[in-house]
């Protein structure tokens, strides 16, 4: 026990010291690199170049200031750690009370033949540490149950706790502690050819969700004054060919929309027929040569192609509206996180200066145009976006004042970033493990409707719950030894039935799956562990950087069919 406290005390001291010095070093290094591009990049920036393109410097900072706890250095655990250490997570702590066995070393890249019989936590930490000297690797040679018994607050200090191959009882205990402490919890498991992940975080906000196919924010249906004026400055009927052919398609659509409004009672083209007419109207605007043959005007072709999306009414998505309508947005206190204060500020903007719309995003897609026309148009949108952001900033300031916080608590760059991403804000609320496991609140509907297709990945979830039940009863997993496989099928089937009965689930689990799970014998094939470790690390990075959207809340990977599914349980 004394040894344990000594270890804990030492690593806390090391972590605190490292974390603060690293932050100031980071800032100095980046500042030096940015200030003068001619000095090139630091080695660290070069090393992290590919990932900085994905989540930026601020994302990298978040990663480098994070401390992750991983319980059990099995193959799944070390694979996911590898994928956090390589990109430079600040620190990790492995909690594992096991000694490495021959079987462990056989499927784990971060254990060697010398590790057999030694602390699995220590052996794995050493080999993982080799991957990246920027990272602080630590270990605690203790079982999670012991820590939960003696010092549950041990887990409070982590940015994220990842439990790998946990027994059900440990998982639930740990889940409860972390839920109450507001620490995100990710449970991972590789069981034969099945991968499983469960995320439990009360509330996770995302400003930069980086959506794949975002619609542009062009405001053609509701042009703001500066855009209207800019469009006015063009006279398409009186232009030289070279200017006519290099007018941005946004201007073309805006001009022809004006024509359309005059003839259609100021109504946007609504259905397919009207949009076709509108496209024709634009097509007829293409210059013709002396023989009446239309010239090659690519910008007009672009306009025609973009009519469909360009005329989409500007509106606030349901997801963003839900954020505005949320409780956190309504009740601003001095404890309210920056995300909600900014959300409230944008909501107030929408309801006043925004005239029902979000702040203008400020970006336009590339399009055929000469440089000057394009840049001028781009600047119209950029400047409007800046103005809108300033107005939002005023709302932020008065909100901060109303709860007695200094205006510097939320910076201008933060507000700008928030406004730019206003249409893509996301909030994820996961249910607790307690709710998932309780008979009263389990998601019966989701389970039963999925099981209408008996080979849906949901059956694998039910099987995992069943083998946990088996473990509870027999203190082992089914089919670990060859001689057990056949007789365990019957025993496992009893567990499946009792599970379904206890939860009142009127579904059928095919015998094939029961057989298959006995066949697995609780094995952890490296390839499945590797894939799951990769997925888990990516979700961990999302949680830490608050970029991209994490899954909610149960992910099942079926390595037999190479399919996967996500359920909200």
């Amino acid at each position, binding site marked *: 026990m004394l040894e344990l406290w000594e270890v804990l005390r030492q690593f806390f001291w090391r972590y605190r010291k490292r974390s603060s010095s690293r932050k100031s070093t980071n800032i100095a290094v980046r500042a030096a690199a940015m200030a003068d591009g001619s000095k090139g990049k630091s080695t660290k920036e070069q*090393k992290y170049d590919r990932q900085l393109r994905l989540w930026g410097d601020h994302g990298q900072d978040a990663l480098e200031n994070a401390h992750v706890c991983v319980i059990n250095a099995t193959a799944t655990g070390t694979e996911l750690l590898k994928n956090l250490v390589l990109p430079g997570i600040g620190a990790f702590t492995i909690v594992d009370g096991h000694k490495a066995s021959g079987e462990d070393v*056989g499927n784990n*890249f971060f254990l060697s033949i010398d590790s057999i019989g030694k602390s699995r936590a220590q052996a794995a930490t050493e080999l993982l540490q*080799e991957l990246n000297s920027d990272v602080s690797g630590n270990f605690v040679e203790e079982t999670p149950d012991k820590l939960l018994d003696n010092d549950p607050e041990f887990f409070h200090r982590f940015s994220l706790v990842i439990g790998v191959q946990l027994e059900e009882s440990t998982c639930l205990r740990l889940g409860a502690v972390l839920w109450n402490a507001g620490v995100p919890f990710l449970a991972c498991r590789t069981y034969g050819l099945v991968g499983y992940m469960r995320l439990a975080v009360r509330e996770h906000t995302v400003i930069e969700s980086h959506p794949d196919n975002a619609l542009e924010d062009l405001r053609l249906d509701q042009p703001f004054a500066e855009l209207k004026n800019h469009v006015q400055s063009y006279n398409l009927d009186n232009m030289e060919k070279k200017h006519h052919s290099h007018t941005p398609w946004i201007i073309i659509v805006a001009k022809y929309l004006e024509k359309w409004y005059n003839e259609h009672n100021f109504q946007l083209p609504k259905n397919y027929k009207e949009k076709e007419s509108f496209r024709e109207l634009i097509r007829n605007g293409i210059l013709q040569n002396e023989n009446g043959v239309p010239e090659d005007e690519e910008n007009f072709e672009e306009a025609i192609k973009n009519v469909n999306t360009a005329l989409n009414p500007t509106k606030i998505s349901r997801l963003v509206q839900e954020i505005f309508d949320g409780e956190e947005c309504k009740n601003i206190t001095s404890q309210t996180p920056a995300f909600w204060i900014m959300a409230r500020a944008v909501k107030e903007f929408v309801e006043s200066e925004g005239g029902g719309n979000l702040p203008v995003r400020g970006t336009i897609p590339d399009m055929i145009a000469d440089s000057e026309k394009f840049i001028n148009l781009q600047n119209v949108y950029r400047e409007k976006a800046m103005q809108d952001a300033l107005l939002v900033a005023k709302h932020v300031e008065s909100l901060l004042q109303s709860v007695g916080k200094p205006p510097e608590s939320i910076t201008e760059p933060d507000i700008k970033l928030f406004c730019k991403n206003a249409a893509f804000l996301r909030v994820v609320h996961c249910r607790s493990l307690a709710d998932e496991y309780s008979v009263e609140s389990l998601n019966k509907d989701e389970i039963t409707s999925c099981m209408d297709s008996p080979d849906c990945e949901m059956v694998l979830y039910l099987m995992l719950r069943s083998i946990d039940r088996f473990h509870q009863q027999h203190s082992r997993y089914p089919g670990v030894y060859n001689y057990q496989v056949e007789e365990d099928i019957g025993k496992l089937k009893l567990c499946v039935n009792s599970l379904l009965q206890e939860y009142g689930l009127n579904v059928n689990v095919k015998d094939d799956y029961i057989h*298959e799970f006995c066949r697995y014998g609780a094995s952890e094939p*490296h390839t499945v562990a590797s894939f799951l470790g990769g997925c888990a690390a990516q979700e961990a*990075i999302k949680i830490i950087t608050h970029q991209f959207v994490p*899954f909610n809340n149960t992910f099942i990977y079926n390595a037999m069919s190479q399919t996967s599914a996500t359920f909200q349980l």
Partner: protein
Amino acid sequence: MADVEEPMALDDANWDGRWNHVSKFLERAGPFTHPDFEPSTELLQFLLETCKILVIGAGGLGCELLKNLALSGFRDIHLVDMDTIDVSNLNRQFLFRPKDVGRPKAEVAAEFINRRIPGCNVIAHFKKIQDFDESFYQQFHIVVCGLDSIIARRWMNGMLMSLLTFEEGVLDPSSVIPLIDGGTEGFKGNARVILPGMTACIECTLELYPPQITYPMCTIASMPRLPEHCVEYVRLLQWPKENPFGDGVPLDGDDPKHIQWVFQRSRERAGEFSITGVTYRLTQGEPRLLISASLGLSCLLFRSAYISLNNYLMFNDVDGLYTYTFEADRKENCPACSQVPQELQFAPSAKLQDVLNYLTKSATLQMKSPAITATLEGKNKTLYLQTISSIEERTRPNLCKTLKELGLTDGQELAVTDITSPQTLLFKLSLST
């Protein structure tokens, strides 16, 4: 240059329980296994002693592949990679350390795996895939690719097609070498299993690859709007003209001095047009290939060796995690795997340039710089070849000539070679008005 082949003593490097996780799948029957699967202890022996695997690429995917294969029992592994290690590789290519920068990837990767996984014998080849011929590729049971270029994939695909043998028009299954391929970009990835001659190949599904972003030359040359246009201007036009680091010295995306030069001039260019947004990072991004390995996307590929993936898997975890698995169809007239002779239809008054345009721009062919030859008056005549400048100069005038002027006749065979395939493709020319 001799390949690095270290004689590895394949003694019994097996300790108690080493293969427990793997053997359960090889020695136990199960309800979902392949109908021909028979559990046996011999399967593990096959993996350990007989199975020969070729891994192409030792980068982000390659490192994962090697680790996963080695920990699954594969020992006789050959590894081909033509690159050396760069600092920017170290954030994901975990077999490399800072001290290895500059060394060949294949060699360092092989050393690491052989050291960490006792009994494993990875043999490194610091070579291009094109440096080997059929006699090399024929020896493998499976080929796994972790490449970063579509061209290389197509070449590999073509090579395995060329190994197929047919007996009276029927494919001999023993000549089929499965190809497992994967690629990643940011938070997206894909994996597929190709059984040459039996399932959809790379050429069958060329449209699945996202089009590479290229900007029109007029935009780059005179009408830039985006910072990217400015960088492309410097890369494509200014660099070849000024040759800043010596005559004919190509732009090296990994050399900070080169990138610095491009960065400064891109900024100047942007300044002329009041374009903002040229950063060092943006500059460095331009010469890179669009497909780059991402972090944490582990090898899905190997799973297929147990029960085959049928046959294409897409993965995207931008928003939650999403996978989509489907069976890609073979193309009936696929130029690589269908055995159907390819036809070219042109008017006799069409120019050779038109044929060249078709070969490079058609969605099914997408050739890069094809060389066209034909048999004229009993002799093999090169009509056009781009890749050797002296021949390019000599044959360039042919591009403006009509097919009739060149002496080509209806039904004539044209032989086309291109970097996208190890084989010569034969086209039947159909001349009609």
